[in-house]
């Protein structure tokens, strides 16, 4: 029995061990110091014949490596269950992307002060007063010097977009309203798993 195992060890050195013998022998190699030592001796003979021996080779190198490997995860386990860091990476990356997008929106959104043509006279405009907003608007050249000296209020983005909305063709308004309703319904079902449900991006060009 022992000779049979030793013969298998010899064949293992040569890469000539049959696959059906390998599993059992490797298991026994892991358990038996005697087998391990014999296997090392057979390898030593082979290396001596090929003049591969080095004076630095201590008998414990393989043991040192084996001890270090005990703390390493085995590869198959690593493939079946990704590391904890990898599991967390995806949602964290998604969240980071969403936050970046939101920050970019806040910081890069065009400010109304850049549009002097929409500057108007004193007095704030309530959200419900858009109907008369058109009549309030005048080109900046038409505002006289005394008016310019008084404090000015800048029309906000919301008021401006309301005004643009009113200017739209009623049929187009209906189409956009339908679209927004459908978009909200779809977002609410959670069928879109990205940051997109929380974004409103509508493009409109006159004449389209």
């Amino acid at each position, binding site marked *: 029995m022992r000779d049979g195992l030793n013969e298998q060890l010899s064949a293992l050195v040569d890469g000539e061990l049959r696959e059906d013998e*390998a599993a059992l022998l490797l298991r026994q190699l892991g358990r038996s110091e005697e087998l*391990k030592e014999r296997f090392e001796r057979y390898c030593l003979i082979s290396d001596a014949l090929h003049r591969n021996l080095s004076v630095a080779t201590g008998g414990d190198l393989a043991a040192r490596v084996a001890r270090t490997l005990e703390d390493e995860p085995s*590869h198959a386990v690593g493939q079946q269950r990704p590391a904890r860091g990898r599991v967390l990476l995806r949602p964290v990356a998604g969240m980071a992307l969403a936050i970046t997008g939101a920050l970019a929106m806040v910081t890069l959104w065009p400010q109304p002060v850049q549009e002097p043509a929409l500057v108007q006279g004193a007095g704030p405009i309530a959200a419900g007063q858009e109907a008369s907003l058109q009549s309030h608007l005048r080109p900046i050249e038409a505002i006289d010097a005394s008016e310019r000296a008084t404090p000015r209020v800048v029309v906000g983005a919301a008021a401006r977009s309301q005004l643009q909305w009113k200017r739209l063709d009623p049929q187009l308004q209906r189409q956009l309203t339908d679209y927004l309703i459908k978009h909200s319904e779809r977002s609410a079902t959670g069928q879109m798993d990205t940051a997109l449900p929380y974004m409103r991006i509508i493009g409109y060009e006159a004449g389209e």
Partner: protein
Amino acid sequence: MTRRLCTDRELVARVKAGDKQAFNVLVQKYQHKLVKLVTRYVHDQTEALDVAQEAFIKAYRALPQFRGESSFYTWLYRIGLNTAKNHLVSLSRRPPDTDIDAQDASRYDIESRLKNHDTPEALAQRDEIERTVLMAIDELPEDLRTAITLRELEGLSYEEIAQAMSCPIGTVRSRIFRARDAIAKRLRPLYSVSLTGDGL
């Protein structure tokens, strides 16, 4: 009929499937070769062993990326070489400009360089092991000597040896084992010293 054999490729596949013991077998098979390679660059014996250990650990960690386009040893050789060079760089020592190819490594005689760094006792012990192995082979019965010589020195497979010696593969396997066993018995006194002492 094709025999499925447990070659290095199979051992690597086993490691990838989670069998650490298969990697230990690869370490035992190649530890002397790798240490010899490392000592070409790192002359201090203790450092060389540390570097070799590091190279084996790196190889284990990188094994899932090993696609088997070269032999396992050629791949391990590159890792050993890079680890040794990086070790020299980390110590602000300049690594050699030229590399020795894995296939040519055994042909290079660098004994003169090693002699400056190795202890006479360690060198004598290594030479003693090599001499004992050759003497033991000379004393083997002819069929065992032919089988082990064809395998170790000529590099023939068991199948080729079986054809050359006109005998079954099982007989070849048995003869090679018996030859090794006889040599190992002759080595035992030296081997027990080398396991406990410095050097081999």
